[in-house]
């Protein structure tokens, strides 16, 4: 379906013709598979010289996989990459740098104890004499409006300046294409404006930029061309300057209508089971998001979904509700009992259950057997797994069998280590482990992240069934298809602010998209 759109766009955006002698990078049919999941499915992408090219898509759409293939850290399973008219194989990041491809990562790889020039010297193939390098750093950084003091120790520098180091490091290698993965997610608006000027200057000099961002206004403001990925495929290309954030959002999330199972059976709404009252928490690290005045009421019988782009406070909100992060007691009420300062097991005993986003390493211990992983969350919930301090292997094994059958968890041999299961099967296990308890409140973050369609359907149905049986379910998800499929009410989280939940029937994708792009903040601030 991409090809037709493609030709339309070609004529529509004449100044940025997608073919001809300006082509810098041309990927054709790039395919990458991870186990059962097709992360990139025959992706075509053309980047012209001097172009700021946006790569858009929801989380899991395959953006990172694609750029990792350009940067040589992943090897494509199929397809070709042409660079400046020549077919190339990019074996590793060093080969990419040699071609003139540089990358600025979302999370920095700097040594805090070293100074700016030392950090840059470490990354260069032939840094030369340190004094000369320091001079070059000063000149280049000033020229591009990203002034750096070469002798500053990284540990003393704020995040915005650290990103400058990464960018200058990239610039010193005189790249012809710079890949930036969500560069503004760590910047203040002023720092971001400065970055845009630099990017525009680079583009005017003929350097191309591949720009990954969730901030649609930003893309609209500075990018010349946008490619939209969805489920590993290119679904659209456009000139973002001719679009609005809402139309870009709808391209990202897809506008097909999906059969809504949740609406088929009207919920019988009961009492408030989980209440959040002005829940606020400061950011624990520079990469974390602060929670701001979040209020929410979750009633028995309903599924409330929280939509939002990754890194807008979902993880922090989950940790606060589960008790892994403690807050003031009155900020969280479970069946009316204040529990903001209580631990996770106290909340589990109050019949709450939690499924975190990360299956391996958070929801389950990778090197432990499934039966042991059952003990992980149910050792103090009165399931007879622990008697007088001793773990009952027999009871845990029995429970493992029960969950395996009820949720169709497939495994090569009985009771394997968690790490050996496929993503979908492990997710069914991790969700099944909690649903097996018939919890009164279930909080689940990214219930079907990276899961095949069959497993996803099973998990979603189980969530709806649980709510209809009288429990309250809070789903945090970045998958709008999923949210519209299962939610009775939808709220949107943006930079740690939560919008007022609205009935799913009244919500549109456009409205959700706008709330994601910052509308939730203004609403949250007013509320």
């Amino acid at each position: 379906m991409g090809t037709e759109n493609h030709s339309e766009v070609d004529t529509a955006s004449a100044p940025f013709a997608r073919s001809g002698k300006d082509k810098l990078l041309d990927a054709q049919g790039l395919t990458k598979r991870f186990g059962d999941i097709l992360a990139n499915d025959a992706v075509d992408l053309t980047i012209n010289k001097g172009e700021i090219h946006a790569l858009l898509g929801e989380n899991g759409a395959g953006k990172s996989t694609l750029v990792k293939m350009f940067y040589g850290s992943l090897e494509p399973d199929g397809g070709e990459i042409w660079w400046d008219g020549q077919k190339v194989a990019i074996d590793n990041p060093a080969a990419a740098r040699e071609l003139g491809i540089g990358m600025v990562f979302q999370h920095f790889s700097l040594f805090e104890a070293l100074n700016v020039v030392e950090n840059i010297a470490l990354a260069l193939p032939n840094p030369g004499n340190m004094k000369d390098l320091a001079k070059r750093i000063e000149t280049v950084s000033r020229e591009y409006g990203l002034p750096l003091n070469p002798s500053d120790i990284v540990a003393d520098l704020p995040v915005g300046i650290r990103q400058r180091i990464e960018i200058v490091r990239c610039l010193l290698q005189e790249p012809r294409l710079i890949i930036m993965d969500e560069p503004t997610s760590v910047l203040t608006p002023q720092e971001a404006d400065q970055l845009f000027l630099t990017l525009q200057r680079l583009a005017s000099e003929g350097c191309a930029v591949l720009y990954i961002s969730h901030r649609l206004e930003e893309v609209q403001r500075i990018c010349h061309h946008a490619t939209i990925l969805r489920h590993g495929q290119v679904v659209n290309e456009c000139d973002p300057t001719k679009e609005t954030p809402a139309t870009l959002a709808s391209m990202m999330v897809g506008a097909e209508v999906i059969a809504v199972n949740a609406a088929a059976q009207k919920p019988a709404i009961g009492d408030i089971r989980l209440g959040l009252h002005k829940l606020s928490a400061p950011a624990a690290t520079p990469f974390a998001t602060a929670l701001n005045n979040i209020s929410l009421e979750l009633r028995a019988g309903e599924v409330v979904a929280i939509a939002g782009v990754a890194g807008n406070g979902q993880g922090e909100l989950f940790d606060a509700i589960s008790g892994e992060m403690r807050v003031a007691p009155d900020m969280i009420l479970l069946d009316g009992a204040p529990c903001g300062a209580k631990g996770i097991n106290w909340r589990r005993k109050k019949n709450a259950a939690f499924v975190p986003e990360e299956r391996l390493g958070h929801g389950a211990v990778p090197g432990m057997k499934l039966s042991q992983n059952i003990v992980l969350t149910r050792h103090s919930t009165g399931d007879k797994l622990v008697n007088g301090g001793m773990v009952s292997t027999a009871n845990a094994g029995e429970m493992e069998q029960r969950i395996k059958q009820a949720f169709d968890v497939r495994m090569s041999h009985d009771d394997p280590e968690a790490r050996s299961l496929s993503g979908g099967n492990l997710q069914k296990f991790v969700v099944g482990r909690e649903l097996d308890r018939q919890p009164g409140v279930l909080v689940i973050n990214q219930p079907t992240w990276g899961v095949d369609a069959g497993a996803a359907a099973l998990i979603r149905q189980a969530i709806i069934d649980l709510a209809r049986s009288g429990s309250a379910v809070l789903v945090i998800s970045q998958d709008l298809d999923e949210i519209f499929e299962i939610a009775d009410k939808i709220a949107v989280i943006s930079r740690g602010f939560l919008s007022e939940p609205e009935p799913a029937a009244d919500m549109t994708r456009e409205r959700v998209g706008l709330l994601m792009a910052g509308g939730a903040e203004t609403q949250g601030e007013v509320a």
Partner: protein
Amino acid sequence: MRIELVKRKEHSELMSLMSPLIAVGLTALSAAIIFAISGVNPALGLYKFFIEPLTEQWSLEATIEKATPLILIGCGLAVCYLSNNWNIGAEGQFVVGAMFGSILPVMFPSFENSLTLPLMLISGVIGGALWAMIPALLKTRFNTNEILTSLMLVYVAGLLLDYLVRGPWRDPDGFNFPESRIFSDAATLPDVFGGMMSLATPITIIIALVLALVLAKTIKGFEIRVMGESPRAGSFAGFSAKRLTIFSFALAGGLAGLAGTMVVSGSLNQLLPSISPGYGFTAIIVAFLGRLNPIGIIIAGFVLALSYIGGEGVQSGLGVSNKIASVIQGLLLFYVLACDTLILYRIRMVSRRAANPAGEVSHV
């Protein structure tokens, strides 16, 4: 042609058992090379080092005596390492335990009754645990690196001991030698099994067996293993990393302190400036060679004890410096850690740009 490490889907049970054996084999091979370079017949050197100590009654007894503190300290360290707490300071905890255990026989020599020994052992445990609390609290309160703090405290403890035996605790009838008064009979651990070993050895074996049970079967053992493998999952299970840090340091320090008291009370009978030939450091190797499993640690303790006796054997018999014992111990730890890679990875030879199967691959 390149060598790749390919991640296994699950960890290999076979390799968990084989890894220490391969490591011992590689260590013996390296030792043979070192003997050859030193101009000694490698076969004879290996025999003197590893086999001869087992052939005579006195050297067998000496091996048991040296293995005992290694096993006891190693068991405590295993709990630390399993839970991701890098206590490198067992040597210091051993020394402080020995000093605490000596308070009673040195300062109150007339207190001689059936309570003397139990009280000494308990104070030894308390002393070691208190010393271990310093790095534990620094870690939980200020996020300090426990490797550095626990290691540095080893030297502080050594100097404290030195001060005590040269100063306030010097034996008044000792002709100014830096040593404490000799302990009375009531403060001496009795020998058992016809004098083959002191009571310290059976106590140690019982503690190791209890610990093996705790680690394998109880919720505390589960907590320790979860926290070591995946702290995030541990906090999801409601376990507290800080409390476990305190617990594991207290346990390791307590056991090291008990070992210290049992060494001074069972074999030395007085406090000396050097009461340990590096037990606390060698126990690190014991813990890893024993797979951080108390039963494995009992075996590993004997293997490492052998290296002390064997080192003396090759020095007196073949004229090779007994420093070779430290070299061999170091090689052993090196090989054990290297061989442990095979538990989670297998080695594969591939030609350039072969089809890349799904799975994580790291280049070597």
